[in-house]
């Protein structure tokens, strides 16, 4: 695992050595603040909660996660460093894990910036911390699933723009499956299945403060599925 740690450290440095990390953090915090105060009108509602932060969060993640995952493998392929990485005595899963953890750390940093909101609301009113903790946990888990999907899609192409668009589409589709607008089009049994597969429906319940082990297991398995797919995608490059 020392190799996964080396990859993690390098990837995290790469984020902060380039403008990506800063643009991501500013965009993430900025968008969170904007929706919190303007779209969800925190002051007009007059309730001391963070629903204004968490309700639009899945969309924010769908938009911003692909921006931090698109380079993970595409860039390596484009500049030829993939060949250097894959000819080192390293297991493919160590590379995937290191990259995943680096992107997750960046996302966590973005979420940490919004803690300012939680603390401020906690100071001005009586904030129920249950849903807040649930919301952050849900955001980390939902984010992990999207990051894993994004990384996998980045391994499929050397074109970063394409990797971005693919990740956006896949994350949006995963979210959309479970929404009432989409699931409602189908019969009850199919709708139940769609809600079970979709990422959005579960996020809502976690953000209400209901932490169900099944929801956690769902996000963990979705993340693991995409990470495994990514290991597979990297490995199959050797066969081509």
């Amino acid at each position, binding site marked *: 695992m020392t190799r996964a740690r*080396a990859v993690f*450290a390098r990837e995290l440095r790469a984020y902060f050595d380039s403008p990506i990390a800063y643009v991501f953090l500013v965009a993430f915090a900025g968008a969170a603040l904007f929706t919190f105060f303007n779209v969800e009108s925190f002051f007009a509602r007059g309730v001391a909660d963070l629903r204004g932060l968490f309700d639009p969060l899945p969309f924010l993640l769908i938009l911003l996660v692909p921006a931090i995952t698109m380079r993970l493998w595409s860039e390596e392929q484009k500049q030829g460093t993939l060949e250097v990485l*894959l000819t080192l005595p390293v297991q493919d899963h160590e590379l995937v894990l290191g990259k995943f953890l680096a992107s997750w750390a960046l996302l966590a940093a973005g979420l940490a910036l919004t803690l300012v909101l939680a603390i401020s609301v906690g100071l001005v009113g009586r904030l129920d911390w249950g849903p807040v903790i649930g919301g952050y946990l849900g955001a980390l888990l939902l984010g992990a699933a999207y990051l894993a999907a994004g990384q996998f899609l980045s391994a499929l192409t050397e074109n970063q723009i394409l990797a971005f668009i693919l990740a956006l589409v896949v994350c949006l589709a995963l979210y959309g499956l479970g929404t009432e607008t989409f699931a409602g089009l189908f019969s009850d049994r199919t709708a139940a299945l769609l809600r079970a597969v979709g990422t959005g429906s579960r996020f809502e319940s976690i953000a209400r403060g209901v932490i169900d082990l099944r929801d956690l297991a769902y996000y963990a398995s979705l993340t693991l599925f995409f990470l495994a797919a990514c290991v597979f995608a990297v490995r199959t490059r050797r066969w081509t």
Partner: protein
Amino acid sequence: MIELRDIEKSYGETRALKGISFSIARGEVVGLLGPNGAGKTTAIKIIVGYLLPSAGSATVAGLDVVEHPLAVQERIGYLPENAPLYHDMLVQDYLGFMADMRGLELDRRRTRLSAVVEACGIGGVLTRPIGQLSKGYRQRVGFATALLHDPEILVLDEPTTGLDPNQIIEVRSLIRRLGKTKTVILSTHILSEVEATCDRAVILIDGRVRADDTLAGLTRSRAQVVTLATPDLESARQALAALPGVSGVEVLRGPDGFHTLRLALATDDAIGERVADLAQRRGWKLRELRRDDRSLEQVFRELTTSVVGAVA
């Protein structure tokens, strides 16, 4: 040390390697020579475990590259074509990262890092971003990382492409220096590179091994050229043709009283002494007596054009 047996590799419909076999002994410096698109890079990528062969087997230090890729990669230092590097990293950070990836720790990490910085002459650029370095320096950084774990085997894919003449000379002397203690395989389409650095050349053309020999063996041809003066050319010709080992005599030209004859030989044995003895006994005036060796360029031309001819 490295052994390829009937290796084939196809990319979709294209057959890049059509069954190549060769082996490299410990301590040898071998050039993989061939025109662009002959399959050199593919063969190299199979040896280092980056690509899997479609058929055949490859072993490095007795280990199968498909079954034990990590153990093979531990033993190899690899410099890919154009030395791909992370352009936004500082040289020292990149070296540190590669040392971590190689699992070097503590004292060994420190001594190896300073050893490769010294060997590759990159002490002056350690704090610069790789993207700002000249091509020559990038190549050196690539070399440094390939040498980091002090591998037994060095695999270099076109190590001098894009370098200026001075840098080429430096890289070649580096390869020669490393070749004293390591097994080296390098690919190139530059013939003088092989002449300057290698003991042996494997010539790859159109996915097949067309020649595999020492440089002397490749350039040696079975012919002896004799230039002499004699009043009776015909009897001289017959006497030379009667020498053991000579299978034919051809009179090339005879300007100023001297005649140049080309003797085709049946074997690789030297016959210079016998010709000299004969000349002395017969009283010929001998001006020139040499082996009619070809240059590596000629060998290469002959091999490549014969294939092109066969295709056309």
